[in-house]
């Protein structure tokens, strides 16, 4: 996620965006787009669909900016939520299929594992199978059948297990 300085900068930029200042969108984009695009490319694999999801994310953010007026935190979460929804939409028309081998190794990359101490509390509380389940589903869009095989669980149990994981993340946020 963003470091302290980037968060401070984002808060100031969001004030300008919420004041309907189009010029502020450039700063907003510069601060957040690597994070947003990083999330999108995990879910969407065609270059055109990735670009489509990114453009749609910022377009939607501009039109929904009124939701953020008067709020000083949570901008990144809000934007990533939009990005995730747009990525799921773009994936519907994505003509480039995911490469199963690549995705299977990707849920929690080694380089990210090393930063575990910097993870939010909610993620630290998840055990390995819960982390694999939620990250592989949410970030990578792996099919339920694939996950069920890997985790040794029944496919129809996956939605209930995901709800339980989401509740753990909720509890960690207080």
């Amino acid at each position: 996620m963003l470091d302290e300085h980037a968060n401070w900068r984002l808060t100031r930029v969001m004030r300008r965006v919420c004041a309907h200042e189009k010029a502020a969108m450039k700063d907003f984009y510069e601060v957040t787009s690597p994070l947003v695009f990083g999330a999108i490319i995990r879910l969407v694999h065609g270059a055109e669909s990735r670009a489509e999801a990114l453009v749609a994310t910022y377009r939607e953010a501009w039109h929904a900016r009124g939701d953020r007026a008067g709020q000083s935190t949570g901008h990144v979460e809000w934007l990533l939520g939009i990005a995730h929804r747009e990525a799921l939409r773009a994936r519907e028309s994505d003509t480039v299929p995911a490469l199963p081998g690549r995705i299977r190794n990707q849920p929690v990359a080694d380089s990210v594992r090393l930063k575990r101490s910097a993870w939010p509390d909610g993620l630290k509380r998840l055990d390995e199978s819960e982390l694999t389940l939620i990250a592989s589903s949410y970030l990578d869009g792996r099919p339920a059948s694939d996950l069920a095989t890997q985790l040794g669980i029944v496919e129809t149990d996956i939605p209930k297990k995901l709800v339980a994981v989401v509740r753990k993340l909720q509890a960690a946020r207080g």
Partner: protein
Amino acid sequence: MSAESHKLELLATTCLTGHGTDAQKAEFDGLWGNDAAFRDLVGEIEVWLAPLGVLAEEVTPPAGLFDEIMRQIDADGARVEPPAIADDLNVWRIAAIVAAVVAVVAAGLNFVPRPAKAVAAAPVITTAASRAALEPDAARGQVAVLAGEDAPVVVILHDPEANKVRATLSNVNLPEDGVWQLWLVREGTEGPESLGVFETRPGTVGQGELALDHDLIPDSDRLAISLEPAGGSPEAGPTGQLIFTGRVRGL
């Protein structure tokens, strides 16, 4: 948690994590479009899931996409009014508030409408004939309805003849531990421009006033109010929360 709310939570989580069937996705989209409580639930779940973002590495997008974003936003703006906080509120309620405030202000100014004008709001702010002859558009009054979260609304009336902007408050009071600063947000400018700090209008309750030596462009300019320390923002732009925003309309 009721069975119904559990079902909705399951549906939202299933779809947000990419496991929704076509039927579930259709149900999700239907609820998203028609059920504000469901949208709130989805928003909450997205916030809970957001920490997963640390697992995705940052990647710089290809060049040129920002220009495409702005091109599409500009194209949207040419087709429809951009949504803002004010647009989310009930239009009829705002219209009623404007009408009520206009009536109150008209009564306060002892104004008697000209019989020939059928539109009650139009003559509320009288104009100097000489100025009208020179700048007919600029001489008309302007109004902006600035809406905040929940119900608070501020109706801004600009009287170009008196160079005054008057704010009439609904469900909110001027702050005791700071000041309200008015900002002009104009397309094509660098950033919000300060129009001054509201002071309580003498002899009134729930009204603020500031002198304004600035023409406003109806249907284009937006006004915003931020909460600032006494004396106003120490910087060129707002430093405090933007608590109200709204578009300028001509009267």
